[in-house]
């Protein structure tokens, strides 16, 4: 029960007027960021990072994580009212959320979305509260080989759990690793791949990549599709909220299933987007009203929203305990920790107790505050979307440029941001996934360092990665995930071979019947 005591201590840290105010500001900014195209959780936090340099680290991370919660909430508003997913993880919410809005049940859909987001996040925070200290204690005994195995698992799961071509995931990821390797090699001090250019000395900063890939890239995509907002109005009335809550209680099976899916996908870095799709798919399959999905079923809003929020929140668990983020936004928060002089990883739980528990306590408070704010302020946020895109686009571009400049006070980074924007636009259109690219830039040098240290210890013998049951089982799990697409591909092939004669005989039977 040490956790409870620590958590109460955390609440004492988080419950100052200054921190509460930052929480509310963070949630409001976050929802706005989530609603606007071109600004999302990851790049929104990246842009606002420099503004927190002057704050104490605990307050800074409280505000930044609240921006993240806000962005998670905000995505649902645009999906339901405008059929425009503000964030990739709210795509699945449009399937049933927007039909509900068209039937005049927007308030019901919004209440369901916000409440299930809240439930998902709350469950994930409870998981973090009790699991994180255990994982951290466990990870204190990790050596370089163990750390490398966790990195390996992280990246293997992108390949194993990603949708689409595994080779595109690999290409995107390795591009990130290669970009991350540019600059000073931290182990030997040699310059790599700078080709005599001084700007490349410090390498490619992933914050620039995040702002460019997600921010500029999304502006370009939005411009291309000639975005015109046309959506339903909504205000949320109290009696609808209460009725919807009553209805939601009956959907507890879906909620629990979605929470499990979300927490699992968040801790292993599958991320919020696949979690929301997977949860929607499962709900459709197991629900009694599965056939109604896509026509405005409340359950079809509950499932993806719960899972996305649970995944988004639990992605912070590996970030805090191992220093390995589960999502691009968690990676940006990790970047923040390092800038404030905190070393993420298991020692954080020993050396920075106030910080860790203050953050965890703020997750509880932030989500409660978030639920209240979004339920009451929906008309305000929907109004933002009615501002023409020709006003929003240049302002977001200016904000992105400012954000990119402030990372290193360098104009080169601003140019780089534009280049990353074009890459992001093209990659998104061709289904090259962006999160593995970003995480590879962030984690590449750390993965390399642990690999080289492990190799040095074992004198180049790869068997060190199977030298004890812990590192061995993580590596084996990673290898299975890495080759998972191959397994499913073989299965599909076998099935199509088997089904062909069956189909032929079924066809013959049909012909027989007609006679």
């Amino acid at each position: 029960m040490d956790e409870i005591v620590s958590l109460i201590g955390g609440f004492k840290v988080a419950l100052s007027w200054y921190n509460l105010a930052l929480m509310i500001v963070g949630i409001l900014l976050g929802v706005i960021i989530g609603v606007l195209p071109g600004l999302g959780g990851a790049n929104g936090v990246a842009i606002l990072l420099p503004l927190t340099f002057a704050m104490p680290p605990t307050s800074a991370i409280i505000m930044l994580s609240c921006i993240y919660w806000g962005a998670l909430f905000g995505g649902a508003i645009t999906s339901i009212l405008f059929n425009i997913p503000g964030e990739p993880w709210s795509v699945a919410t449009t399937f049933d959320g927007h039909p509900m809005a068209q039937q005049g049940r927007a308030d019901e859909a919004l209440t369901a979305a916000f409440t299930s987001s809240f439930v998902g996040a709350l469950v994930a925070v409870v998981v973090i509260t009790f699991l994180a200290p255990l994982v951290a204690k466990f990870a204190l005994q990790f050596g370089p080989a163990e750390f490398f195995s966790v990195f390996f698992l992280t990246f293997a799961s992108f390949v194993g759990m990603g949708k689409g071509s595994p080779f595109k995931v690999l290409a995107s990821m390795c591009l990130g690793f290669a970009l991350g390797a540019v600059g000073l090699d931290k182990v030997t001090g040699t310059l790599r791949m700078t080709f005599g250019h001084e700007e490349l000395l410090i390498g490619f900063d992933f914050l620039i990549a995040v702002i460019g890939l997600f921010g500029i890239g999304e502006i370009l995509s939005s411009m291309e599709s000639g975005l015109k907002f046309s959506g339903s109005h909504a205000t949320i009335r109290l009696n609808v909220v209460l009725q919807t809550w009553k209805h939601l209680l009956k959907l507890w099976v879906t909620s629990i299933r979605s929470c499990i899916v979300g927490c699992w996908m968040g801790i292993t870095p599958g991320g919020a987007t696949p979690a929301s799709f997977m949860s929607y798919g499962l709900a459709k399959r197991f629900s009694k009203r599965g056939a109604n999905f896509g026509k405005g079923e409340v359950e079809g809003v509950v499932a993806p929203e719960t899972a996305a929020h649970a995944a988004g929140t639990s992605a912070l668990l590996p970030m805090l305990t191992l220093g390995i983020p589960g999502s691009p936004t968690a990676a940006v928060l990790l970047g923040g920790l390092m800038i404030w002089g905190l070393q993420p990883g298991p020692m954080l739980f020993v050396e920075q107790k106030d910080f860790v528990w203050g953050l965890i306590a703020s997750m509880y408070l932030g989500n409660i505050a978030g639920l209240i704010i979004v339920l009451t302020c929906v008309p305000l946020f929907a109004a933002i979307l009615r501002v023409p895109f020709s006003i929003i686009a240049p302002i977001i571009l200016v904000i992105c440029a400012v954000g990119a400049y402030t990372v290193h006070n360098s104009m080169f980074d601003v140019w780089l941001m534009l280049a990353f924007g074009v890459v992001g636009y093209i990659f998104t259109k061709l289904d090259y996934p962006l999160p593995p690219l970003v995480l590879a830039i962030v984690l590449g040098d750390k993965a390399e360092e642990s690999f080289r240290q492990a190799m040095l210890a074992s004198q180049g013998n790869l068997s060190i990665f199977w030298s004890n049951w812990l590192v061995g089982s993580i590596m084996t799990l990673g290898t299975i995930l890495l080759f998972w697409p191959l397994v499913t591909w073989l299965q599909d092939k076998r099935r199509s071979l088997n089904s062909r004669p069956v189909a032929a005989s079924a066809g013959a039977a049909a012909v027989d019947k007609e006679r």
Partner: protein
Amino acid sequence: MQKGEDTNDGRPLVTNRTMEIVVALVLLAGCTLVIYDSVRLGFGWREGEGPAPGYYPFWVAVILAVSSFINLVSAARSAGASETFVSLRPFGRVLAVLVPSLIYVALIGYIGIYVASAIFIFAFMIAVGRENPLKAIGVAAVVPVALFFMFEKWFLVPLPKGPLEAWLGY
């Protein structure tokens, strides 16, 4: 998003297949650069140092090359009817934001980020958005001023400044 407006989009410019091939080729070209430099740095084992500095980029580039090659082949083989990557009009809209952004970033170096932002927002709202000039002037003035006070005064993060700021004494 608005879909199914192909009739208004004008002539298709590039197919997905072509773009897939271009991206794969660009990535392959990147691989040769990385492999070239890794070979220079050494990618083997060094006594007392472990894997040489080029070891990791070398193998990363090899995996990237293999994946890109597979992507290239699978794109080249999908000959049949290919989806459009971008048509004339949407591409024009992309350029309408990309080209002004390039000019904007180029301007920052000469006249500072605040004045450049004001010009960019104003020009974009007039030329692309066809907004009311008064409204454009308003937005173009408020945003940089707000940024100025936020960064220079409140958070003490200096941004690139030009002659106007110098004349004002900053």
